[in-house]
C-alpha cells in the first residue's frame, strides 16, 4: 500500500471521519460492526481472482463448458459457485489470435466481484477510466503488454449491470497441465484484458 498524494495527517483525518460515521451508525443500531467485518473479510480473503481463474481454466479444459460460458455466462459461472453482488448478469468475452478484449467502467467502478473480487485501485482511478476507451494500446504498453498493430482490440465499457469477464487465450504448450495448474496461469489482469495468460505467470 502507498498513500498517493495523501499526507499522513490527511489519512488521519479520514480515519477519524470514517470512525465517526461508524460510531454514529452503530450507536443508532443501523449497522452491525460485525457485519462490516464480515463484508471486508469476504472481499479481502474469500472472493478474488482465483475464482475467475477457475472459470477460465475450466473453459480451456472443457469445450462444452466454454460453449455454455458463451451462451449463458451467468449460469455457467454460477455452476462453479460464483454468483451474487456485482456479478448478477455476466458476459464472457473470448480473446482470439486476432481479437483482444479489454474491460473498463468509464462512469464509476463496475467490475465482476464474484469472479475477480474488488477492483484494484488503478481500475477505479481517472487515468484508466479516461484512457482505456481511447488508447487501449498505450494503456496495455504501460502494463507491459505489446500487441501487434494488426491485433484488433474491443473495449467493453460497463455502463449497465452487465459484467464482463475476459477469457484470455490459452498459452501454448499447456496441453499436459491439469485444470488446477492451468488456473495458476490466469492472472487477474488477463481477465480484465490488461494482461495475457502466460506459461511464466506465477500462481
Amino acid at each position: 500500500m502507498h498513500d498517493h498524494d495523501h499526507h499522513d495527517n490527511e489519512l488521519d483525518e479520514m480515519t477519524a471521519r470514517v470512525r465517526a460515521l461508524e460510531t454514529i451508525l452503530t450507536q443508532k443500531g443501523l449497522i452491525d460492526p460485525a457485519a462490516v467485518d464480515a463484508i471486508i473479510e469476504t472481499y479481502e480473503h474469500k472472493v478474488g481472482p482465483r475464482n475467475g481463474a477457475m472459470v477460465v481454466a475450466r473453459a480451456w479444459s472443457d469445450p462444452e463448458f466454454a460453449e455454455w460460458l458463451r451462451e449463458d455466462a451467468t449460469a455457467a459461472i454460477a455452476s462453479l459457485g460464483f454468483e451474487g453482488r456485482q456479478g448478477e448478469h455476466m458476459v464472457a468475452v473470448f480473446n482470439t489470435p486476432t481479437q483482444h478484449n479489454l474491460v473498463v467502467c468509464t462512469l464509476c467502478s463496475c467490475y465482476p466481484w464474484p469472479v475477480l473480487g474488488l477492483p484494484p485501485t488503478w481500475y477505479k482511478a481517472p487515468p484508466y477510466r479516461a484512457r482505456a476507451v481511447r488508447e487501449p494500446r498505450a494503456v496495455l504498453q504501460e502494463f507491459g503488454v505489446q500487441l501487434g498493430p494488426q491485433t484488433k482490440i474491443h473495449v467493453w465499457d460497463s455502463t449497465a449491470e452487465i459484467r464482463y469477464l475476459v477469457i484470455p487465450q490459452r498459452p501454448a504448450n499447456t496441453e499436459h497441465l491439469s485444470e488446477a495448474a492451468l488456473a495458476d496461469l490466469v492472472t487477474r489482469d488477463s481477465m480484465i484484458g490488461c494482461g495475457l495468460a502466460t506459461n511464466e505467470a506465477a500462481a
Partner: protein
Amino acid sequence: MNGPQDLGGRHGFGPVDVASGDEMFHAAWEKRVLGITLAAGALGYWNLDASRHARESLSPAIYYNASYYEIWLRALERLLQDAGEVSGAELAAGQSSAPGLRADRCLKAEAVSAVLKRGGPTDRPGAASAFSVGDRVRLRNHQPAGHTRLPGYVRGCTGVITLLHGAHVYPDSHARFDGEQPQPLYTVSFKATEVFGADADPALTLSVDAWEPYLERA
C-alpha cells in the same frame, strides 16, 4: 449528468498507476468505508443508481482529489443525511444524538453471506426490444442534469446493436426515486474512429451498454 464521473476519452489525467498492482485499498479506513456502505444499503433508503448519483454529484474539485472510497464516504454521508438518519451535527460530533429510524433493518453479520450471494439482479419483465442484433442506431443527444448511464463520449455516435439483454431497471428514473421503469437494454458497438475522430486507432472498436430511450434508429 455531465459530471466529474464522465471520464471516457478525457485527456490530462496522466499514466495509469500500474505499480499499484493488486492494491485494493490505500489505507485501513477505506476497508471500513466498503463495509459500512454495503451494510447501510440494507436500510433500503436508496438504490444503486441513487448512490452512484450521490457520488457523481460531488463537486469536480472534490471528486478528482479523492480516492474512490473517499468518494463513497462523502456520498454515504450525504445519502444518510437526505434519509434523515444522520445530521450534520452528529457527523461533526462523531456521536449519535437520536435513535435510528430503521434499526429493524440493520444487516446482521450472520446475514451478510446470503445478502452478498443474492446480489441485486436488475433484469425485469418489460417491453420487447425494438431493435435487433445488427441494427444501426444512433445514441441520442441525451444530457440530463440528473443521473444517466449514457456516457458523453458516445453521444451522437452511430453504432450497431451487438447484444440484447432484455429489459433492465432504467437508471435515469431509478436514481431520482421515480420507479424502475424497465427498458430494453443493448450492447452497442462502435468503431473508435466514429467516436474519437479520424485520428483514432483503426483497429479499435468499443461498446457501451445502453437502454432503449438512449437510442434512435440510424
